[in-house]
């Protein structure tokens, strides 16, 4: 067994007296596609915020590719190779679709500010490379035709797609998707399922997915972690989770 790409041990955080997440553990290996589910308010997004450094965990250990990412800032964690999308879409609205992706390429830009302002050949070539790379990513996600439109003018499904494109532009090893299917119609959900499989293959990323749509999660995730009131109540493949009495209780209430 190789060492996991992302390893999380006993992660906990409380807000005031509320234990939002307690003892959350997770191992994500290369090429994994795992799901994180749970009823509303179970602490799924809090988990993502802990992993990406938006919140600072009270307790616990996080390692990404063998490197500790405890107490790192969000941009450092992104640089270390973990990118995310947001539950409520957070695009750079005034920027074009292409520029949204270009912003994510800033992370790997090596030019100096002086170089950019003096227009050094290096900065010029890099700017060109950023443009090419961004267009290539948009092309693979089917958004190239709309590259020069404002991000807000995209239909809802495409905005979600753009969020994924933007996250991929940071060259992540791990991609966290926070309810990517929220608000999508069945057709869009099918496309999303295909898209997730496609990017996993094409961009060689491990995916951790928060999702409400059970059908979607059960159909594509190899391993599912179920949270309720901040605690992990079940963990396993689709069948195991579905048969777990605690899970049924959490979703349907006590019998």
């Amino acid at each position, binding site marked *: 067994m190789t060492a996991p790409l992302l390893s999380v041990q006993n992660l906990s955080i409380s807000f005031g007296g509320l234990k939002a997440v307690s003892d959350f553990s997770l191992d994500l290996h290369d090429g994994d596609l795992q799901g994180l589910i749970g009823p509303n308010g179970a602490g799924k997004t809090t988990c993502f915020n802990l992993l*990406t450094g938006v919140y600072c965990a009270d307790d616990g250990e996080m390692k990404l590719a063998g490197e500790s990412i405890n107490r790192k800032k969000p*941009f450092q964690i992104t640089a270390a190779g973990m990118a995310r999308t947001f539950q409520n879409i957070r695009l750079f609205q005034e920027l074009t679709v292409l520029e949204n992706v270009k912003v994510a390429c800033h992370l790997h830009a090596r030019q100096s500010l002086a170089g950019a302002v003096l227009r050094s*050949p290096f*900065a010029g070539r890099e700017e*060109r490379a950023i443009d090419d790379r961004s267009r290539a990513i948009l092309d693979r996600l089917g958004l190239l035709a709309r590259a020069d439109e404002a991000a807000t003018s995209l239909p809802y499904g495409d905005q979600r797609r753009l969020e994924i494109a933007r996250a991929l532009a940071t060259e992540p090893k791990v991609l966290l998707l926070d309810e990517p299917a929220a608000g999508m119609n069945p057709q869009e959900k099918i496309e999303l399922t295909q898209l997730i499989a496609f990017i996993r293959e094409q961009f060689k990323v491990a995916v951790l997915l928060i999702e409400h749509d059970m059908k979607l999660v059960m159909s594509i995730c190899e391993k599912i972690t179920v949270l309720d009131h901040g605690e992990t109540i079940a963990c396993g493949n689709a069948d195991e989770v579905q048969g777990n009495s605690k899970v049924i209780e959490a979703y349907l209430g006590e019998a």
Partner: protein
Amino acid sequence: MLDYAAKPRTAEPSWLGGLIAPAIVIALAFVLYAVVRPITDDYYARVAMNVGIAIIMAVSLNIVNGYTGQFSLGHAAFFAIGGYTAAGISYYASIELWNSPAAHEGLFNAQSGLFLLATIAGGLVAAAAGWLVGLPSLRLRGDYLAIVTLGFGEIVRVLLQQTNNQLDSKAKIAAAKWSELFPPPLNAARSFINIPNITNFFWVTLMVGACLIFAWRLKRSTFGRAMIAIRENEVAAEAMGVNITRLKVWAFVFAAFFAGIAGSLYAHLSFQLNPGDSGIQRSIDAVIMVVLGGLGSISGATLAAILLTIGNEWLREPTHLWYYVLPLLVLRLIFWPANRMKAAIGWLVALGLAEGARSLAIYEGVAPGDYRMILYALALILMMILRPSGLFGTREITDLPAMRRKLLNRKSVQRGIEVIQ
């Protein structure tokens, strides 16, 4: 075949391409200095240089308020810091070196070299102050940051008032006790006078050009995009790997640097610096220019700086016919995408307003300049109702042809539909 691969390529990047704009600026500076200035009336020359200084203030504030979306109300403090630093250096160095602070003849001489160094020093000191102010911006947002910057402006003003009295000869400097030299003898409580009058068309053009080129290239670079991303969505920007801490402080540093340079130009233009020159009024003027022009738009900030500075002069004495151009232009811009009827009404209203102000001034002895702030406020209110994104929105003047094409297309499409129906 992919679209992006088929895109026609411009020439391979080289250092040469980046030198074209600076070369044009330097050539223009020489032409303005040697050809235009001799045939320009002193009064208009003075207005023109004030326009240049206002452009630097607006375009540099735009880096903070427009790019990163932080709301700073303390831009005049950097102006004051740069102005007093540069004026202090050039004044006392001139006395030490040449026994007199009077300006020397000619464009390039030892004193203009000194002026250039003093200006850059003023910019650097202001930039250091900008770094200090930038630090709280990491924790504060919106209104809170505005209050902090406002407070910073007051601190600078009060500190400047503690400076010692001015020393006006070499002998006095030599005889001065340490207590007279620290705090520095900038006489900022009253008025720091006899600053060498070195600012001219050449230097103003050069600095405006430097500021515009810097702001433009910054905006078009990966750093500028990251700054604008911070404005658009700070959480997302950080999640996409943008080091928001660094860029927010940088924005303050760059803006302060150029504000300091503007302060130096102003000091060396006016012979004297007063505490009032760098009060809250100047900060607010700069904010109005940025908002009126459109947050993030360099063209907008530049245009607003030109309009408001000339507007000030016009309000002082609204009797010159050619000043009609100004309100007309403003209204034309406000009603930009509107139809011809609206535009025509706009022109008429502008004419009426201008004519009204002119007659008032002539026949009633009213000084409309006294109502400047009311008129600014009205202009802002009108703007917020009619074009809330400012004259240019976030676009630039280079985007205009494309915008116009789009507009025409839309109109022709509509007309086509009408014909079919």
